[in-house]
């Protein structure tokens, strides 16, 4: 298992009753970690977040949620593709978090 830091937007922190950052356990050694694996681990640790990041029915990222890490926008990367090696290494090392972000979109 690999411990990965995840930063949550304020509404999801409140919902999960946690702080800005959580650490989740993702299967594997870190090499080849996927977006889906990180999000599955997050939802496993915080079931209340199911449906708030990915649509319950389609499993797709909700339109106004973005995923960033290492100053890269991973939002539109295929969820089952391994994350870029430098990103995966930084997440596995704990030097960078995986950011779940509420998109800038009025309201």
């Amino acid at each position, binding site marked *: 298992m690999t411990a990965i830091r995840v930063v949550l937007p304020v509404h999801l922190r409140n919902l999960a009753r946690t702080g800005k950052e959580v650490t989740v356990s993702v299967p594997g050694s870190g090499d080849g970690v996927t977006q889906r694996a990180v999000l599955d681990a997050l939802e496993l640790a915080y079931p209340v977040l199911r449906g708030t990041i990915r649509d*319950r029915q389609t499993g797709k990222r*909700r*339109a106004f*949620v973005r995923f960033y890490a290492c100053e890269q926008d991973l939002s539109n990367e295929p969820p089952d593709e391994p994350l870029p090696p430098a990103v995966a290494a930084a997440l596995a090392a704990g030097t960078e978090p995986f950011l779940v972000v*509420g998109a800038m979109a009025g309201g």
Partner: protein
Amino acid sequence: MTAVRVLAGTRKGAFVLTSDEKREKWSVTGPHFGGWEIYHLKGSPADPDRIYASQNTGWFGQLIQRSDDGGLSWQPVGNDFTYAGASAGQQGPGTHLWYDGTAKPWEFKRIWHLEPSRTDPDTVYAGAEDAALFKSTDGGVTWTELTGLRTHPTGPSWQPGAGGLCPHTIILQEPRIYVAISAAGTLRSDDDGETWRVINRGLLSEGIPDPDAEAGHCVHHVEAHPARPDTLFMQKHWDVMRSDDAGENWYEISGNLPSDFGFPIGVHPHEAETLYVVPITSDSLHYPPDGALKVWRSRTGGNEWEPLTEGLPQHDCYVNVYRDAMSIDTLDEAGVYFGTTGGQVYVSPDSGDTWAPIVRDLPAVLSVEVQVLP
């Protein structure tokens, strides 16, 4: 000592307003779920401290919150409103009509209305956009679609109103259930939601190709008096309507209203022929005629209406009152409540004769429900 609790859902959270039976001095708590749209929250008639709330944003989707202590604390319960026939990553069968005339697969968007059972605190119904009715029997933890509504033979012809294809009215008279959907119309089930029939005969809507079509009417809200379950009152897109035969036939009761466009309609709890509406100018001008906010009351079951103005702003007022934003308590001298898009919640402790604001500066009010507590 009797208390009154008003549950207000707004664009940016929920608020709980409480008073004694005089309804003069109020305390306000909230926002609960600050920043989220609360389309509706409603308490269980069987256990007033059991309250359900629909919490949504465009960012993070739909949640249902439940309180077991009258709104002091909340816990998120189930938010899986997967439509029957759908599987992971796959939409379910069937379509409705989209704005461009194409057939669009059904897609869950939000819960507009929550209707707790009259007898069981753990049973609650939810009206889901697009046009689905869900039921929970475990306090909102799990939800099952009552598929007979969405799969009605007229379903493929249903088209969203401006707000979406929303089931906004749920009237429980188990085993009878009424549901109203914009812009499909009103439907009735006599078997606990298994099968449904469209009940729109008598409705005339100029905005659709066939004004008296079986389905396609933009019904805004429907209410029934508990003692007269077959009598229904409807505020349609245009027209205030009435049925005395469980929706089989409708006739117009707009009478002398200055405009028969509006959203909410209310029925007095002790006078089954006393009604309340809040006319707004038109479909394109969603504010009161002449900038004067007036509730109109009929004591004759419609057609003859009187304006109620004392305590309401009579100039420079351009707010709207949404379909679920009016409620009436059951005290001997019934209290009438409504919330506005300007953030005011008004109370009349004397059946509409006089009004006063409970609060003036909430976010836009989406829903108002009142409870009388022993």
